[in-house]
């Protein structure tokens, strides 16, 4: 006598039946697509494919140009965009002229300040060591005497 089927067996039968129907429907879709293929659509798809291949070649070229150290990071470097291929010492070297310029400016500033201090010190020393008291230079008559007396 026939025994009733177990629920799991019935479920598998239903799934298999669904799959058979589905595959026939999709086969019909493929057949219809092959029949109704438009030249315009085919041309557009071919163009899209060529664009994609060109993009892939571009990415590969950039990846190949990058140094091996960047290649070690694997897919993450590719996914994160095109990495900068300039080595660190070259980037540091590009900062060298700026550093020299800044050092030169600081040196000039230091020299100018020092020469001003030295000039002021010389004047102060001359005034203080002179026989005339500094107050003499406040006298208008003495200043006028110095102007007329100088050659």
């Amino acid at each position: 006598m026939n025994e009733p089927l177990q629920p799991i067996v019935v479920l598998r039968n239903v799934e298999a039946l669904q799959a058979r129907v589905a595959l026939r429907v999709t086969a019909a879709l493929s057949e219809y697509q092959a029949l109704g293929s438009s030249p315009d659509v085919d041309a557009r798809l071919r163009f899209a494919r060529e664009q994609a291949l060109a993009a892939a070649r571009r990415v590969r070229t950039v990846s190949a140009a990058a140094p091996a150290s960047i290649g070690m990071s694997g897919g993450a470097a590719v996914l994160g965009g095109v990495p900068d291929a300039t080595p660190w010492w070259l980037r540091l070297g590009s900062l060298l002229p700026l550093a020299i310029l800044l050092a030169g400016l600081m040196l000039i500033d230091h020299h100018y300040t020092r020469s001003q201090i030295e000039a002021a010190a010389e004047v102060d020393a001359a005034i203080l060591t002179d026989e005339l008291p500094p107050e003499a230079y406040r006298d208008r008559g003495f200043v006028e005497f110095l102007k007329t007396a100088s050659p």
Partner: protein
Amino acid sequence: MATDKELSDFLKSVEKRAFKRTAYTVRNDDAALDIVQDAMIRLAEKYADRPPAELPLVFQRILSNATMDWFRRQKVRNSLIVNLSEFEGADDDGGDFDLLELLDTSNGQSGTESAADSVGRTQILQLIDAQVQELPARQREAFLLRYWEELDVAETASVMGCSEGSVKTHCSRAVHALAKALRAKGVTL
């Protein structure tokens, strides 16, 4: 890493189905072509270093995302509200429908088709195409990914961003809805 030829062969093998699947969803051939092109370029730019075996799943995911991006852009551009209920679909599972009725008839007829039936055959194919297009979006997506793109349940769930149970439910409902609609129109496969 996929070579140029492997990538080209892969794209050639999926491009027409990708276009059709997208055209079903966006109902605009030009937009579908743009979306497929966008997906192809994204795949080539970001994932061309992947092994060829991984490309189908990655491509389907990119295509689905590109399609959703298109809907988002359309929504912003046209200030239209996308009818989300379409994505959920009606609960038309046709639980009592006997799938065998469709298959039994088709088994009997598949070997008897002659060249004279070609016009009728084309009309049948057109009708099947239209019925697939009439499916709710999520059901159609699950059905096409699972059976046309031949992804397994887990891969389909991954592409659709849902559970495997949901994929099975969507597929089952889609098959029953298709079978019921085709049988109602007297179509056999």
